[in-house]
């Protein structure tokens, strides 16, 4: 059985929302601050008084999900699976601050209710009246991929046909500063935020890109071992390394994980390399944004130019590999195919 990406949508720190290609507008030098996501007009997607109650990450999640489904021509998927690394960070911080300031009395429960990780998937279900399977994964830098794998398994078991799967994370300068203070940041790279969704379907329409396979690796850190693992994965998929046309790489420059990215790049000599984090920043669910760029590259047969518009590639693009490697957290390979 094949699994296709019927449609995709991304709210990010770029004008990616509601675009046919990658994004609109020109890139600016971002420095290393947190670049917030660009919020669309949520009134189109969330009706009535519920909009006011929802935090920004919930609005972004719900709107991105709704727009993704619209694009895929589906009212209601069979299942919803979301990955989020930090969860609902703003409301968690808000409730913690209230606890300290009010000394555990007179607390407003709304930020507590919305602090729960699965509020994102739950609110999407509520908006769509989707009574199907509803799941939320939170495994740091692999949060999105374990969600994607869950959706994958569900579809392979033929329990469902259409699954909405997404990666959602908000972030802020305060958390970034705390990470810096505790020595978690090894380089100066900007952080982004995002709500990226995909409608997976076992039946393809039109020009849908196939989600051909995926593999997650947790017990290997060495570049050579991971490259061998990728080799095995591609063999299993019956795809030669030279057939990979696009490598969507999570490399962000000076990070210590660079060795792995370089090794994989060397293994895929024909691949155009898209280092997507230079556009959308680092995030726990950055791999969802990587998958978005990969799907759009194959679908549009182009790669982002400086202005974000698709510039036509000088060859046909059939295979894209999304690589996400985070030291001590794990590695993911996601393979896309467009015939």
């Amino acid at each position, binding site marked *: 059985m094949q699994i296709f990406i019927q449609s995709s949508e991304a709210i990010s720190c770029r004008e990616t929302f509601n675009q046919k290609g990658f994004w609109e507008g020109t890139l600016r030098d971002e420095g290393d601050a947190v670049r917030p996501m660009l919020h669309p007009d949520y009134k189109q997607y969330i009706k009535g008084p519920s909009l006011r109650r929802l935090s920004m990450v919930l609005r972004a999640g719900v709107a991105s999900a709704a727009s993704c489904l619209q694009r895929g021509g589906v009212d209601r998927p069979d299942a919803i699976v979301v990955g989020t690394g930090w969860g609902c960070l703003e409301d968690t911080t808000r409730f913690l601050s209230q606890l300290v300031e009010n000394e*555990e009395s007179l607390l407003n429960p709304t930020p507590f209710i919305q602090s729960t990780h699965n509020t994102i998937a*739950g609110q999407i279900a509520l908006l769509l009246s989707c009574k199907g399977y509803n799941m939320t994964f*939170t495994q740091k830098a692999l949060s999105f991929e374990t969600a994607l794998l869950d959706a994958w398994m569900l579809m392979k078991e033929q329990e469902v046909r259409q699954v909405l799967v997404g990666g959602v994370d908000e972030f802020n300068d305060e958390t970034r500063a705390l990470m810096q203070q505790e020595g978690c940041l090894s380089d100066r790279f900007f952080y982004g935020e995002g709500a990226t969704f995909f409608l997976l379907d076992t039946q393809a329409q039109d020009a849908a890109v196939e989600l051909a396979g995926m593999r997650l690796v947790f017990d290997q850190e060495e570049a050579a071992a991971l490259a061998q693992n990728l080799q095995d994965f591609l063999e299993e998929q019956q795809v030669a390394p030279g057939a990979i046309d696009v490598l969507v790489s999570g490399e962000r420059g000076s990070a210590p994980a660079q060795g792995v990215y370089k090794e994989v790049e060397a293994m895929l000599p024909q691949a155009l390399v898209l280092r997507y984090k230079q556009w959308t920043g680092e995030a726990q669910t950055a791999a969802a944004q990587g998958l978005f760029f990969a799907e759009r590259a194959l679908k549009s047969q182009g790669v982002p130019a400086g202005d974000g518009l698709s510039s036509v590639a000088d060859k046909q693009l059939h295979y894209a590999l999304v690589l996400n490697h985070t030291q001590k957290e794990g590695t993911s390979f996601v393979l896309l195919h467009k015939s």
Partner: protein
Amino acid sequence: MAQQIVVSGLGIISAIGNSVAENLAALKAGRSGIGPAEHLASRRKSDFMLGEVKLSNADLMKMLEVDPEEASKHSRTSLLALAAAGEACRDAGLDLWDGDRGRLALVSATTVGGMDKTERGFARRDQDASFIHTHPSGDATNLVAAYLQLLGYRTTLSTACSSAANALMHGFRLIQNGLADKVVAGGVDALSVFTLNGFNALMILDQEWCRPFDEHRKGLNLGEGAGFLVLESAESAAERKAKVYGRLSGFANSNDAFHQTASSPEGDGATAAMEAALRKAGLQAGDIDYINAHGTGTANNDLSEGKALKRVFGAQVPPFASTKAYTGHTLGAAAGIEAVCSVLALEQGLLFPGLNFKTPIPDLDLQPLTELKASPGIQHVLSNSFGFGGNCSTLIFSK
């Protein structure tokens, strides 16, 4: 043909004991672990009855032989998870297993991860923000995987109070899809000032002992702990001559899509989850011998769950009870702890009763089991877990 996935190891730590044996003894004796909390650093803790694990963090580290130099890496959450997941691994013989440890997966679940440590450090974070390491929910999972040398796949689910049931489902699928040989799956949550105050602000905490399914129930008692199970294929268990407690024979998740925190009045999500789990197990409602209910003791849950039970089982609702009156509602751990209780019911041929029940809910006319009952022929136990976000999960364990 679907593989048979069996349970070959159990681990639990809760207010009623620090091991499976201690928990079983308390369940048999009808002994609740709920009372005033000693270790939780809340200025309001004397206002509430809580199901606290009777060990300080220092006691836990001593019990687990955690290197004192590594103490700062842990939240109470990771310590509780390590206790229960470690016991499950030893019970299944995975501590000494000499196979490929890259094929051992860990699927954990939690609602707030390392929140207990976050909230202790939050007010003075400009001086010490070391909680930033332990706060993400996946951190405790990474630590447990490293300690127990579960070197394969790992992830963490967070779907509020049904989290651990969903971890067991994901674990089942990992084995069925050939992505792991054996999976340690379950859930954990430590009591936190954050959740205590959150639930209090929602006005769903009973200041007395909780009274699941009683007309005069006033809310839940929060608890803490961890419950983990080892899952593997029946062939794998047979090959290594492992003890088999039973099978995870059915499961399902569905969404109530009614309200962020409240269950639908007729229990739509709960009904759908139970019916789909029965279908998955290839069972009829009448095949179920015992139900470990979600049974939080809130006005909303027990009525909604009760109505769902009547919709699924009609006039013949099997003996049911909620073990939350023993352990408190342990949130992300609850479905793991209750999965262990359900498997123990199967293994021991015992139906564990609820506690603190006096008066049936008039609209329901359902009476939970109030006395320990022997049931040597028991074949199938169903366990319900429902959470915020409309998340409804059902597991079925079979002989």
